[in-house]
């Protein structure tokens, strides 16, 4: 690969860098550079994508070799009429709005607080970022330990405050618990991005605002927020697409229970695919989730376009 690239570049000569792509219809140096990565990516994404579509119209048999039997729209008909499924989507949306919403609010709050701290800000930020690097499955297991009704630290604290139920055992508190575990892990990401945005607002803008008599809330509302609105939008989108990707925390804590209270769509998909081995129906659910994430990706890329960041 390196060799091919070298010769193709040598043939073309040196000073053509800017005009190469437009003049040459052939695969240029850039094309050769992209080829190995993109070919592998194509194999890893387009093949499964086609398989997913095929599966969603089939009954998948696993015993005695993988086999697809076409069943037409059966899986899709089931998908649109499954009442449990609609409840799962509703729960997913509530979970999504609560986690991402809380993370945005708390993350921006933490960033604004840190922004006022001048000395030791880096150490504080470093400590506050730690949860982000923890494996979500470990976060879930740790959450289970902390909320265990007999020896959990947080359950003990709550008992002191007068609440003594089994946190992961009751629908509402279990839902709240998994939301909070997600919030614990991912709020730092929002804080980190927001703080970067705040730090990039030029000092002169803030000084000008101060001279004009703006202060406190006014500076925030009319100077800082407008200046970092794009940054906040990026944070929101990045977090949104990961929020629909991960479900490890729920999988290891409640596994969708109690009484389906935390059964969001990805959990139901896993259950359908790998407990009941109904891979055709799972594929239909997967495609619907994919459509949602592509919508978010589209928004993300369009936003970058507007800001001229995709070059």
């Amino acid at each position, binding site marked *: 690969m390196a060799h091919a690239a070298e010769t193709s570049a040598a043939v073309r000569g040196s000073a053509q860098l800017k005009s190469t*792509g437009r003049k040459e219809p052939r695969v240029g140096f850039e094309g050769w550079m992209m080829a190995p990565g993109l070919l592998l990516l194509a194999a890893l994404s387009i093949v499964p994508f086609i398989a997913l579509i095929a599966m969603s119209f089939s009954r998948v048999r696993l015993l005695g070799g993988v086999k697809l039997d076409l069943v037409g729209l059966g899986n899709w008909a089931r998908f649109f009429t499954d009442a449990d499924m609609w409840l799962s989507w509703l729960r997913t949306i509530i979970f999504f709005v609560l986690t991402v919403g809380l993370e945005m609010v708390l993350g921006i709050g933490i960033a604004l607080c840190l922004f006022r701290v001048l000395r030791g800000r880096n150490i504080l930020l470093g400590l506050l970022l730690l949860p982000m690097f923890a494996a979500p499955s470990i976060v879930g297991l740790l959450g289970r330990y902390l909320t265990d009704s007999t020896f959990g630290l947080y359950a003990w604290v709550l008992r002191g405050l007068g609440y003594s139920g089994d946190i992961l055992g009751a629908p509402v508190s279990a839902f709240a618990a998994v939301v909070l575990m997600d919030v614990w892990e991912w709020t730092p990401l929002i804080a980190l991005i927001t703080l970067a945005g705040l730090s990039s607002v030029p000092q002169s803008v803030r000084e000008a605002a101060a*001279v004009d008599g703006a202060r406190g809330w006014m500076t925030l509302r009319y100077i800082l927020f407008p200046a970092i609105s794009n940054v906040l939008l990026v944070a929101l989108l990045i977090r949104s697409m990961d929020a629909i990707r991960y479900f490890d925390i729920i999988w290891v804590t409640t596994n969708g229970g109690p009484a389906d209270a935390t059964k969001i769509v990805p959990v139901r998909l896993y259950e359908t695919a790998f407990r009941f081995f109904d891979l055709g129906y799972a594929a239909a659910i997967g495609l619907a989730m994919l459509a949602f994430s592509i919508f978010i990706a589209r928004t993300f890329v369009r936003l970058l376009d507007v800001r001229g960041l995709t070059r």
Partner: protein
Amino acid sequence: MSTSMTPPASPMPPETLPGEATRPPVTAAPRGEAQSPLEDSSRRTRWLVTLLIVVALLWTLVPLVWMLMSSFKNAEAVTAATPQFFFSPTLDNYRNLFSGANNLGPYIVHSVLAAGISALLAVGLGALAGYGLARTHMRGKKHLAFWIISTRMAPIAAVVVPLFLIFRGLGLIDSIPGLILAYLTFNLPFAIWLMSAFFAEVPSSLEESALVAGCSRWQAFWMVILPLTKSGLVTTFILCLVFAWNDYAFAVVFSGPSSQTLPIAASQLVTQTGIDWGQLTAIGTIVVVPMMLAGLAVRRWLVTGLTLGAITGE
């Protein structure tokens, strides 16, 4: 004066509380007696900020510290009805993890191999493709970029289902190569996109002068541009490593006895008969601490990395 500009370093002595003397007359004159409450409120804001930061620190660190502490407790202290804040530390949990029937050693090897190799491959291929993507002027570049990013954002659940079928057909279930390929489904597009963002920061005039100096395109890339993006390479590698190391959703479907990773080992301690929380917190510490150190090592570029290059921090 905006509260954000008051240096919190030296607490203001009480005599200057009214604050008339410290204000420039220009801004002080029109506001008159509004001064005193203002200073009060800036003071209150500072207290509030400190309080909120303390609360945030507690909320963030208590679970982690508790996990670390519990991993050094003996069986009784771990599941004591009243939380034990003082205890005599023991290494029993860690010792038990590495001796006896379910030795953690192989899990660590699987995790290191699967996460490490997938991260290396992702960065290698991602650097090449990212450079190409950053410099190409081909038509349809936007569509290409969009395809790459949407691959990264695809929900894991939607990827796992068809991959499961394909891997089963290819005999890749319960194998390290299978896990590496599975991790590349999210690490490769991430690395391509992020490296492309890092390369785009390097002005292309640098290559032009390298070409004028007689370099080939490859040499210009290898000897001039790549060394300039060393921090980008390291950041991309570490983030890929963290994503793969932390994976649970792929491993729980694709791995078997000869390829199980650390997060799977942790979840296997959860059994019908009970959970050994001492060992579990010990595994948790082993899984979490290296990634935290790695993540903090590239803190300067984290914003760029985690926003896929959309925002460049500091």
